[in-house]
C-alpha cells in the first residue's frame, strides 16, 4: 500500500519537478558547497537503503502475516543476538558517516588566510556591507530589498527575482578567499546564500566568521534565515561575483563616491536638490512603515506629525537614534549626512507639511557620526 502511495506521490510530483521546480539541495558553485552536497546525498542514500530494508520487511509482514489470510501468530519474543546486532550495526554505520561529516566540518571552520574581509551587519530589515581595508578607506553601504510594494501586494505582476533582488548587491571577486565577519545591530538575523554554501547567524554583540571562494562569475541570491521581526521575509541577499579586475575598478569607484559624498557634505544644497534626494531616501528607508503618502502604517503618520512639524533638532535626533522597543530604527548610522539632511527636509516639506524648513548636510555633520 505504502509503495503504491509513494509511486502515486511521484506521479504527482514528477511533472512539477519537470516544470523547473528544484527538489534537491543545490551543490552550488563552490568546492565546499559541492562537498556538502555530496555529504547530503551520501547520508540520504544510506537512509534510503535502510528505509527500503525496514519498510520492505514491514510491508512484507503486512502482506503475508495477516489474519484475513489465516496466518497464525507465533509467540516468539526476545533474541539477544538479534538485539545486539541491530544495536551494533547502526552504530558502525554512524561511525562511517562521522568521518566525511567531520572532515567537511573542519573545512567549513577553516577561516584562516583570507584575502578579503567583509563585515556584514544585519539590521531590521536590511544588510550592511563594509569592506575592511588596512588603508582606512572603508567602503560601506546598505543593501535593501528592491522589490516594489506593488508587486508584493499584487497590483503589479511579479518580476523574475521577486523578493530576491536588492538595490545594492554585495560584490566579491572570484577565485579569492573571502572571509565574512557577521554580526547584527538589533535582533538576530542569519546570512544565507545557498549557492555559495554560507549560512551564519548574525548576532548582536558577537562576530561570527564564515568564508567562501567563488570560482564562477555570476549572481547568487539568498535570504535572511532567522526570524527577525515583521519583515523577516523581505531582507534578501544578492551577491555578484565578478573578476578580480572588475572588482578592483568597482571598489575604486565606490571609494570615489564616498569621497564625493564627504565633499558634498561640506556644501550647501538647493531646496530642489534636497527634495529630490530626500524623496529617494524616503522611498527606500521610510516608505515601508510610514506609507507612500506619509499616511503611516507600521509607523506613525509623517503627514501632520508633531515631531516633523516641531523642533528640527528633536526630529533629527529621533530619526538618528530611533525609538527603542519599536520598529523605528536608529538611522544615524545608516544615512550619510547628505541623505539625512535631504530626508529631513523632504519630510518637513512633503505630504502637506509645509514648514519651509531646510536642513543642510552641514547641520547634520556635527550632530551624528555621518
Amino acid at each position, binding site marked *: 500500500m505504502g509503495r503504491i502511495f509513494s509511486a502515486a506521490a511521484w506521479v504527482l510530483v514528477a511533472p512539477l519537478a519537470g516544470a523547473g521546480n528544484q*527538489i534537491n539541495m543545490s551543490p552550488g558553485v563552490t568546492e565546499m558547497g559541492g562537498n556538502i552536497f555530496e555529504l547530503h546525498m551520501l547520508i540520504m542514500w544510506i537512509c534510503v537503503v535502510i528505509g527500503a530494508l525496514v519498510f520492505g520487511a514491514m510491508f512484507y509482514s503486512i502482506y503475508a502475516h*495477516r489474519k484475513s489470510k489465516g496466518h497464525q501468530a507465533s509467540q516468539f519474543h526476545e533474541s539477544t543476538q538479534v538485539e545486539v546486532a541491530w544495536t551494533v550495526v547502526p552504530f558502525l554505520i554512524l561511525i562511517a558517516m562521522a568521518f566525511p561529516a567531520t572532515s567537511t566540518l573542519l573545512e567549513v571552520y577553516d577561516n584562516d588566510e583570507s584575502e578579503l574581509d567583509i563585515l556584514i551587519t544585519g539590521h531590521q530589515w536590511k544588510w550592511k556591507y563594509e569592506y575592511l581595508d588596512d588603508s582606512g578607506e572603508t567602503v560601506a553601504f546598505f543593501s535593501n530589498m528592491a522589490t516594489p510594494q506593488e508587486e508584493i501586494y499584487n497590483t503589479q505582476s511579479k518580476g523574475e527575482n521577486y523578493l530576491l533582488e536588492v538595490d545594492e548587491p554585495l560584490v566579491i571577486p572570484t577565485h579569492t578567499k573571502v572571509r565574512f565577519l557577521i554580526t547584527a545591530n538589533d535582533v538576530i538575523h542569519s546570512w544565507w546564500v545557498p549557492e555559495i*554554501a554560507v549560512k551564519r547567524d548574525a548576532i548582536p554583540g558577537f562576530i561570527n566568521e564564515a568564508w567562501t571562494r567563488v570560482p564562477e562569475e555570476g549572481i547568487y541570491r539568498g535570504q535572511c534565515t532567522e526570524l527577525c521581526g515583521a519583515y523577516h521575509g523581505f531582507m534578501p541577499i544578492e551577491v555578484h561575483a565578478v573578476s578580480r579586475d572588475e572588482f578592483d575598478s568597482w571598489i575604486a569607484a565606490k571609494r570615489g563616491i564616498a569621497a564625493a559624498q564627504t565633499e558634498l557634505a561640506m556644501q550647501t544644497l538647493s531646496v530642489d536638490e534636497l527634495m529630490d534626494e530626500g524623496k529617494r531616501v524616503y522611498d527606500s528607508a521610510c516608505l515601508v512603515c510610514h506609507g507612500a503618502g506619509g499616511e503611516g502604517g507600521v509607523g506613525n503618520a509623517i503627514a501632520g506629525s508633531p515631531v516633523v512639524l516641531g523642533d528640527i533638532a528633536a526630529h533629527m535626533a529621533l530619526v538618528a537614534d530611533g525609538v527603542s522597543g519599536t520598529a523605528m530604527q536608529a538611522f544615524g548610522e545608516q544615512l550619510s549626512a547628505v541623505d539625512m539632511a535631504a530626508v529631513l527636509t523632504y519630510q518637513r516639506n512633503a505630504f502637506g507639511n509645509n514648514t519651509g524648513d531646510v536642513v543642510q548636510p552641514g547641520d547634520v555633520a556635527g550632530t551624528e557620526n555621518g
Partner: protein
Amino acid sequence: MGDHHHGPAAGVTRWLFTTNHKDIGTMYLWFSFAMFLLGGFFAMVIRAELFQPGMQLVEPGFFNQMTTLHGLIMVFGAIMPSFVGLANWLIPMMIGAPDMALPRMNNWSFWILPPAFLMLASTLFMEGGAPAFGWTFYAPLSTTYAAPSVTFFIFAIHILGVSSIMGSINIIATVMNMRAPGMTYMKMPMFVWTWLITAFLLVAVMPVLAGAVTMMLMDIHFGTSFFSAAGGGDPVLFQHIFWFFGHPEVYIIILPAFGVVSQIIPAFSRKPLFGYASMVYATASIAFLSFIVWAHHMYTVGMPLAGELFFMYATMLIAVPTGVKVFNWITTMWRGSLTFETPMLFCIGFLVLFTLGGFTGLMLSIAPADFQYHDTYFVVAHFHYVMVAGAVFSMTAAIYYWLPKWCGRMYSESMGKTHFWISFIGFNITFFPQHFVGLAGMPRRIPDYALQFADFNMMSSIGAFIYGASQLLFLYNVVATIVAGKPVSEEKVWDGAEGLEWTVATPAPYHTFEEPPAVPKPVGTF
C-alpha cells in the same frame, strides 16, 4: 476509601471539583482537542496566506503571530495535555491503582491550564498584537523588540510549566507508590514506562524554561541584561537555555507516543512486544541522550569547532536507540496475525512517517550539511513528520483504541478508516513537498516567497486543508460514538489486547481497582 460506591456529582461541580482520574483525563483530552482545533485554525491561516506568492490575506506582522501561536498552542496546549489526559485515564487502570496518588493536585494541574491559554489567546486582541517571535522566542526579538503582550505570554508559560510539573510529580508518585502487588517495574506496560521517564524529563526541564522566561521578564521590566548584548548580556545564552529545555521537550512529546504504539501494535499483531526489556532501556537511553544534544538546534550560531563536533556525534547516537524501537515494532508485527482496525492503521502510519522523520533528523544532525538545512522548510517538514505523524497520529490511534473501553460504545470503523486515509494522504501532500522547497532554499517563517517555490507551496496548502478537514470527521466520529455508538460490553474490547485496563468492566466504572487486582503473567508473555 469507604466501601460504599458513589458515582460522579451532578452538574458542573462534577467537573470543577472532581478528583477522579477518569474525569480529569476526559477534561484534559477535550481541552487538548479544543486547542488542537484552535492551533489548527492558525495553521490554516498560515497555509492560506502561503497558497500563492504575494501578500493576500494578512499582514507580515500578523503572519508571525500566527506561526508563533500555532507552535505554542500545538506543543503546550494540544500535544502535551493530550498525553497527560491519556496518562490520567490509563496509568491507574494499567498498574491496578484506584486513582492517581495526588488527586486534589490533579484537579488543580488541569484547572490552571484553561486560564493560561485564555490569557495567551487574548494577546491577539491586545495593542501591538500577540507574540510574534516564533515558538522558540529567541531574545532579543522576544525581549527588547517584543510587543507589550509578551508579559502575558511569560505568565502563561509559567502557569503551564507549573501545571506540567504538578502533573509529572503526580505520575511519578502514582507509578512509584500505587502499583498493585506483583506489578513490578519490569512488568509495567510500556505506556507506563514511557510516561514515568517522560515525567522525570518534565520535572528536570520545565524549571529551566521557567528560568528562561523569568530572565526575559527581568530584561523587559527590571532593567537587567541577561540577553542584551548592549548591557553585557548574551543573546546566545538564551538559545542554550531554551534548547536545554527544548530538546528534552521533543522527547517529552514523543516518548508517550512510543508507549502508545508499543501497546497497540502487539494487540493487533496478536503477539507480544518483541523486546520489552530492550524497549525500556532504549527509552531510558533516549531520555539520557536528550540532555546532551541541545545545541544541534544551534549549529549556525558560531559555536567552537569542538562543541560543534560533540553535539554532532551525540545527536547521531540517538539514531541507535530510536532504531532499536522501530526494529522492535516491526519484529513484533513479523509473523503475527495482523488485522488493520483504525488504531493499527494509525500506528502503521506512525511507523512509516515517524521513521521518515527520523531519517531527516539524522540528516539534520550532520553539522556541515545542516548549514544548508538550518531554518529552512526542510526542518519544518522534519519536525512535522515527528510531531504530527509521530505524536498526533499515535494520539489518534490511542483514542480509537481505548474509546470503546472508556464509553462502552464502538466507533464507526468505516469512518475511522476514512479518517485515517484522508489524514495520511493530506498529511503527506502537506509536508512532503516542504522537503523539496526547503532543500531548494526556502527559509521558514516567511509570509511570502520567491516564485520558484510557488507550485509546491500551493500543493502544501491544499494538503493542509485536506488534513485539517479530516480532523472534523474525527470529532464527529468521536461524538457520534459517545452519543450513539454501538454498545460493547466485553471486558476485552480487542481480542489481542493485554493489560489490566482490559480486565475491568466496559464501560470502565467511575471507580476501578478499589481492591488491588491480582497481577497476571508478566507483560511479554501470553
